[in-house]
């Protein structure tokens, strides 16, 4: 899939799944049906209490006032108060239980999409801006709350009411009912056509909002770059333009959407007028009484109230489903990297043999191949250095060992186990990667080190920090290990972040180790100091080291020179020098610069 950018709308594939968004949303409500039922009972009780009001009014006029007894008035007032309080009380209880349940369902949906995001592979994140993933978990989920709390039940109540009224109308006069219903046919056609257009409009509007979010989110991440390139004014224009697109869609949508209720009201009015005309004809023809027409017009006005409510709910559903579709789109995204059925964990005791067998790989199917027919065997406990020009595929090689991506053809095996046949958990537990991109989480220094092994004691964390010479700088921080770091760790220097990530990895104690430019921002002195620690760490474990400093590389058991999608040269430092090939050239360049 091509990469999506902030100003590009996300495509939407109209599949069968998108049509079932409502059903799937409601499926989340199903476990709570008990609460909806209780809510329904409260709603009925409240309705019952409100229906008694007119009867009481009649009672007051017919009996209480004529009786002339003040005592009766007071008793009556007390009953009235009770009835009204009962109505209010049941309504409050209904809202309480429904809204509470709504929040629980929202929690469940959010959990579902978030949990699924944890399963999705790198490629999902590679192909779209983070801001567009963000909105799906946050505002899109929140948007469903109205529907999932009071919305559903109100709709059920309205339907019940509608049925009762229709029955009453039919009993009263089938002919008048029929003519009133005639106008419902164009109404249904209108609502259907309207819904199609509105669904499209909401989708398009959400796309524009999503673009703004992506731009905002990226601007937060890249603010340093933006300011140093003095792009503030230009970016404000871009942001304003993105927002203007939202504004335009919004106004267009509202102009259209606002037609909805007037049209329904007008239809209702026309229906009522038609009924009057027919009523007039029937009354003058003598086939029905005037009283029937009056009573019928009373029901007719009540007939349109639930229709209005249901239509309004329908409109809300169309709107929220444009969010739900996106949520389910994410939930339905298949992780490209996942445990296959019957995947086994790697054995307890690993020898640590890593083998590439005719591996071909490209990041995107139509892209150029990054690795072409790569084969090598790393013997257990050996240390392997990957060198070569940037972009040659060194990082790709190590990404395949941890199975962050799958090979296009060929295989990667560890102790003879294809990485695709073992559980991801056991694989990543045994293979430790120190990446170029060393992310620091918000939390204390201690929390960040402990991320490597969650059950590690404070002492173990400190010991790990000492091993990589991070202890000194940590002790200089305002609250040493308890210093709070911000997201991304920007209060630390890049070298300090690398040291922290290193400590994290030491603590995790993996059996196969990958160091991808692990010490590039660390000064030579510190690097030398941590070298003995690294050596101890690597002893007896298979390791892959990507580095550009030859000093870091020289003592590996085997150096692989990666270039042009393959391993051009391999051997020990001495062997490669003797080869007088590209490694030799690289070595010479370093030599020349240092004399």
């Amino acid at each position, binding site marked *: 899939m091509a990469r999506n*950018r902030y100003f590009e709308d996300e495509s939407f594939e109209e599949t069968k799944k998108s049509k079932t968004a409502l059903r799937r949303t409601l499926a989340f409500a199903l476990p709570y049906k008990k609460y909806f039922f209780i809510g329904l009972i409260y709603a009925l009780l409240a309705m019952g209490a409100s229906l008694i009001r007119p009867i009481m009014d009649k009672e007051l006029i017919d009996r209480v*006032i004529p009786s002339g007894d003040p005592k009766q008035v*007071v008793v009556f007032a007390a009953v009235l*108060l009770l009835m009204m309080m009962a109505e*209010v009380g049941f309504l409050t209880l209904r*809202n*309480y239980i429904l809204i*509470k349940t709504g*929040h629980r369902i929202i929690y469940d949906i*959010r*959990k579902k999409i*978030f949990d699924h995001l*944890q399963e999705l592979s*790198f490629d999902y994140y*590679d192909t779209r*801006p983070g801001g567009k993933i*963000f909105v799906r978990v*946050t*505002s899109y989920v929140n948007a469903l709350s109205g529907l999932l709390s009071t919305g559903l039940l109100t709709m059920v109540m309205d339907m019940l009411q509608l049925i009762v009224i229709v029955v009453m109308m039919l009993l009263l006069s089938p002919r008048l009912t029929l003519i009133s219903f005639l106008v419902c046919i164009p109404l249904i056609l209108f609502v259907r056509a309207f819904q199609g257009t509105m669904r499209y409009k909401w989708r398009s509007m959400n796309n524009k909002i999503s673009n703004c979010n*992506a731009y*905002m*989110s990226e601007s937060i991440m890249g*603010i340093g*770059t933006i*300011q140093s390139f*003095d792009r503030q004014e*230009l970016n*404000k224009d871009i942001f304003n333009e993105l927002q203007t697109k939202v504004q335009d869609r*919004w106004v267009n949508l*509202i102009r259209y959407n606002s037609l909805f209720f*007037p049209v329904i009201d*007008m239809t209702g009015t*026309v229906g009522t007028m038609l009924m009057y005309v027919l009523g*007039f004809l029937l*009354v003058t023809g003598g086939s029905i009484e*005037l009283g029937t027409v009056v009573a019928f*017009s009373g029901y007719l006005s009540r007939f349109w109230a639930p229709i209005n409510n249901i239509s309004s709910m329908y409109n809300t559903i169309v709107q929220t489903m444009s969010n739900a579709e996106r949520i389910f789109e994410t939930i339905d995204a298949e992780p490209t990297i996942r445990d296959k059925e019957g995947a086994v964990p790697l054995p307890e005791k690993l020898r640590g043999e890593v083998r590439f067998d005719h591996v071909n790989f490209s990041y995107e199917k139509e892209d*150029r191949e990054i690795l072409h027919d790569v084969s090598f065997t790393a013997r257990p406990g050996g240390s392997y250095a990957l060198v070569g*020009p*940037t972009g040659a595929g060194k990082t790709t090689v190590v990404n395949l060992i941890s199975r962050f991506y799958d090979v296009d053809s060929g295989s990667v095996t560890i102790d003879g186990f294809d990485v695709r046949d073992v559980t991801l958990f056991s694989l990543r537990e045994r293979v*430790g*990667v120190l*990446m*170029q991109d060393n*992310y620091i989480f918000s939390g204390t220094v201690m929390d960040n080190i402990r*991320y490597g092994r969650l059950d590690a004691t404070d002492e173990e964390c400190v010991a790990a920090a000492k091993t990589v010479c991070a202890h000194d700088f940590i002790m200089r921080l305002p609250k040493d290990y308890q210093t709070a770091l*911000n*997201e*991304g760790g920007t209060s630390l220097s*890049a070298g*300090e972040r690398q040291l922290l990530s290193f400590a*994290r990895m030491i603590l995790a104690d993996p059996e196969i180790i990958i160091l991808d430019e692990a010490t590039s*921002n*660390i*000064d*030579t002195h510190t690097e030398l100091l941590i070298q003995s620690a690294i050596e101890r760490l690597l002893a007896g474990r298979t390791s892959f080291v990507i580095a550009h400093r*030859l*000093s870091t590389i*020289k003592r590996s058991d085997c150096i692989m020179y990666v270039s042009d999608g393959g391993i051009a040269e391999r051997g020990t430092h001495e062997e490669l020098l003797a080869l007088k090939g590209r490694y030799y050239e690289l070595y010479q360049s370093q030599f020349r*610069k240092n004399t």
Partner: protein
Amino acid sequence: MISRARLTTGENDMRIIRRLWQYWKKYTFVFVLYIVLGFAVSGLALLLPGISGDIIDKAVGGGRGDLLLPLIGSYLLIIIANKVIEYFRGVMLTDYAQRTLVAMRNDVFDRLMYQSTAFLHNQPSGELMTLYAGDADVCKNFMITIPTMITQAVTMIAAIGLMISVNVWMALGTIVFMPFIAYASRLYARHMRPINMLARERGSELNSVVQENIGGMRIIRSYNREAYEIGRMDRANGAYRDVMIDHITTNAKYSMVNHTSILLPQVVSFIIGAMLMLLGVDRGGISLGGYMAFWGYSSYVLSPVMAFATGYVNSYQQAIASGTKLFNFIDMGSSVTDKPDARPIREGKDHFRFEDVSLSIDGKIILDHIDLDIPRGKHIAVTGTTGCGKSMLVKMLMRFYDPISGRVTYDGTDLRDLKLADLRRRVGLVAQEAFLFSDTIENNIAYFDPDAPDEAIFRAADIAQAAEFVREMPDGFKTVVGERGVGLSGGQRQRLSIARTLLKDAPLLVLDDSTSALDMNTERELLDRVRTEMTDKSVIIIAHRVSALKDADEILFMKNGRVIERGTHAELMALNGEYATMARDQYGAMYGSEGGF
């Protein structure tokens, strides 16, 4: 988080309302028109019951077939007029409300653009997203309820007048209770306030967990921390759900109190009314018709009272909670801004100088009395221990940080007295972190000048040793790179980031450890090209490799915020201090038998 001069609750509320109104001020006519049209709509609606009464009584019932069509016609006309007005009124308000939303969001963005990075980095990214996505929306929604509030308030006052005109005693039965209702809703407001604040905070925390998970996804996968992150999210998600449930629970409790406080006056009025009816009209009592009319008016009083006491109070409290965060952010000055009399830079000699500069952040000393002279054309190299303050030093040239003592000058003028934008144009900084935007490679390189000709882009890429690999990519310079440069290797990102800065063509180029991920050959070629292209410009290179440092006019070796050694490569080697040790270590690691792995 954001500290402000301590305001009382009331003062703060007033500030928020004033700030919100500023967005609407130029649309006052919309507000007024909306309200006026609102009365027109209600007025038209009031005509309808009379006409439909006539249709039944006169036309259908009275057998006046000739009246039927005119009556129906006028009924339809009034409805159409009513709906048309209603339609335009609604569209108008939503349209302008959205404009104010755009304005608020633009202000958040503006502040983001100009706020000091030091401050912004301390904000969880979820918080900034909450300001933009959540808070602005809450404020907008509150503002559009105001016209309705005004309409309802006017209706309420009119209805009270009518009630009094029917019967003073009955009206008093209702009016006496008003202070109690006001008191009950005050109590309600006081209880909802902290809950709304908390709900807003928890929403922001939830957003931060999501943001952080997207950002740290690679680390999470490689450490198998999915379950741990799910646990973290469950807590944030659960905390948010719980505060929302708390919200509805408190709401429900007060709803009972508020409703009761409204029911009581109704019952009292009822008793008075019933007693007056018993009395009979001739003895100063009221008729059944009067009694019914009274109840009709009282519903016009009590339903707005109820709306004010519950719904409006709540949305007001939400608007205050969100507005406080929003305007604290928007109205907060940046610690790094132009002075009012800031001097522009036109033609300068581009002579930068650090004069006894010290910097400390959060009580930690970062730089300790630094002196450094950078006349135009000088090439300087800086190296030193991890965390020694090298990056901070160069960031001060762009005023990402200001010194706490001493000063940094440009042509003898303190940087703080210059126009920030002009200053930043004189410095081309390649930051340590090669941040790329999700856009084409071409647009990333031309970030400073989107109109830059292709040749300039190619040239910059060429000097930065990026042209070759870019041309090999499927779409060449039109290849889209993911957010943060996803899909590129660290070295490729660094080279694009250097190309981007080269295109800026600033008189001072700063490379902050930005060749660390390059192989030695590429680094050498790149630096050689840069040096030859930049002979008339100043260059500061921060690096750890001696090979990248040694050709500079002056080399600084830093440790713990101080420059401990300075001089040319030869001088420093002769000094036989830390620099020489470092050089020997690197050299020895390669050639000697000791150290290195």
